[in-house]
């Protein structure tokens, strides 16, 4: 493998019915780094991740994974989609679901080898899922299901793990657990992470880099480089302030401009 970036998104544009959702977006993800893809609902996070996976046709630009242009990245990318609705009645145990991450693409009906079964056990341990390994995957809680999806995505040993809003439907405690688990597992497996979220604060402790998406455009770099009033104001096209409070970051639009759309992260939580 080269020592270039794992993912290179190069001047990518995507339009739906003539409306540009992604407009000349460029950024890179480096090997073994944790990158947060931050933006409010509807800015195009899912569209961007699906483009990287080759599930969404891009109109302009190029996407390279490990230096190779987009064709079939399937084997080197792990993916945790935004919504996986699993029915509690489906008789597939968490363990089976993780194992599918290993061989779902394989045709034929071969038994899994001892090594493969051990790998599944190891993976279940890595994500702290042994406790519910034999429960039907559809009847797990949101946080438990995320662990299983992460294990499913990681077991094929991808070089990049894409997660689409994995924290969206979790309670604060589970958010913290899943974030620290991802951080640890990604380091252990030497896999780069690109994780989308509409809120960045829970990711601040683990993010190496941030890709901030708004109005179809992106700014990327370290959090200190990107989450600044001047950078984000340019991106939003109007003035925003960045407040830092007790180690948390808030992006706030000027209150006087009442017709200005207030960015979603501006909701102040009082704890």
């Amino acid at each position, binding site marked *: 493998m080269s020592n270039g970036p794992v993912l290179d998104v190069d001047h990518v544009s995507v339009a739906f019915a003539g409306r540009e959702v992604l407009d000349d977006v460029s950024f890179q993800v480096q090997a073994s780094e944790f990158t947060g893809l931050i933006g409010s609902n509807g800015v195009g996070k899912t569209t961007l991740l699906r483009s990287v*996976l080759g*599930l969404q046709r891009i109109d302009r630009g190029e996407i390279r994974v490990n230096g190779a242009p987009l064709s*079939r990245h*399937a*084997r080197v*990318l792990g*993916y945790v*989609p935004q919504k*996986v609705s*699993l029915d509690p*009645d*489906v*008789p*597939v*145990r968490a363990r*089976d*679901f993780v194992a*599918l991450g290993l*061989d*779902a*693409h*394989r*045709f*034929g*009906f071969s038994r899994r080898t001892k090594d493969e079964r051990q790998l599944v056990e190891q993976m279940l341990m890595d994500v702290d899922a042994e*406790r*519910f390994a*034999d*429960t*039907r995957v559809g*009847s*797990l*809680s949101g946080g*438990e299901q995320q662990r299983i999806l992460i294990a*499913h995505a990681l077991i094929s040993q991808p070089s990049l793990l894409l997660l689409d809003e994995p924290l969206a439907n979790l309670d604060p405690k589970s958010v913290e657990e899943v974030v620290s688990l991802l951080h640890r597992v990604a380091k252990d497996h030497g896999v780069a992470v690109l994780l989308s979220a509409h809120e960045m604060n829970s990711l601040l402790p683990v993010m190496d880099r941030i890709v901030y998406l708004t109005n179809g455009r992106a700014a990327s770099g370290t959090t200190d480089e990107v989450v600044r009033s001047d950078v984000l104001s340019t991106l939003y096209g109007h003035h925003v302030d960045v407040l830092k409070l007790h180690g948390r970051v808030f992006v706030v639009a000027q209150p006087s401009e009442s017709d200005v759309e207030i960015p979603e992260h501006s909701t102040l939580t009082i704890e």
Partner: protein
Amino acid sequence: MATFLFEPGFFSSGPVHVALVIGAVSAVVTGVVGVFTVLRGQSFAGHALTDVATTGGSASFFYGLTPLLGFLGAGVLGAGAMDLVGVQRLRGRDIATGVVLGVATGVAALYLYLDTTKSATTGAAQQVLFGSIFTLDSSTIPVVAVLSVVTLALIASIYRPLLLSSLSADLAAARGISVRAVGLLFMLALAISVGLSSIAIGSILSTALLIGPAATSLRLTRSLRRAFAFAAVIGVAATWLGVLFAYDSYYWFPSSQGLPVSFFIVLLVFLAYVASGLHPIPRALKRARLDGHAAAAQRVR
């Protein structure tokens, strides 16, 4: 005791042998395919294929072809048509199915009408819709056997891609699995299994054999492999008992012609489904449920 249960001649009757073999084989295939049908939420598509099969069956009578050919040909064409109209897209699925179902039923009505007006095929409607397992020729057995093996081999060969596509199309597509191709192959298997159960219990009732045993087995086990096995066993048991009761019913009501096999099979499938939802459940199953509850309780904590 055996003579009480098995009326005279049951074991020496040629038509009974053929019925038992073909009934069992098609029940195994239909059970296995049915589990995936339920998992994929394609019961409606399965039912639509039975209507398409009705069209093929009634047409084959009119043209003097063997009904199996009509059931299969129409089923495969119907599956293809549903794919073209958009059965793969979740939202398009019901619409596509409904469109094909509507056309198929209309054409079936035409052929069933034509069949009844043509003197040689007046019994066609009954045979197509509700089956005629005792009238099957033993030469049908090899054809049925080959089709069953092909269908089971098809399912086995696409088992894992099909399973992941059924659980999450997005995950499967991201793995480079062609979700559409896998879905189309499954529809093919579905069409064949509907054809097989149509000759056994009739096209209208084949939905019962497709969905009933599968839905019952999914209630009973947490393991997918066991779900396949249970569905096959329930299907075979219902079919065999149905054949037995239908045979015996000739003796129960000597004045009449006995009762139809399909009626008994469908009734037994239904009873199995109802029983699977009843308490008290057997101990082993109960323990499995309790494990589930324990996990659920842990979640709440």
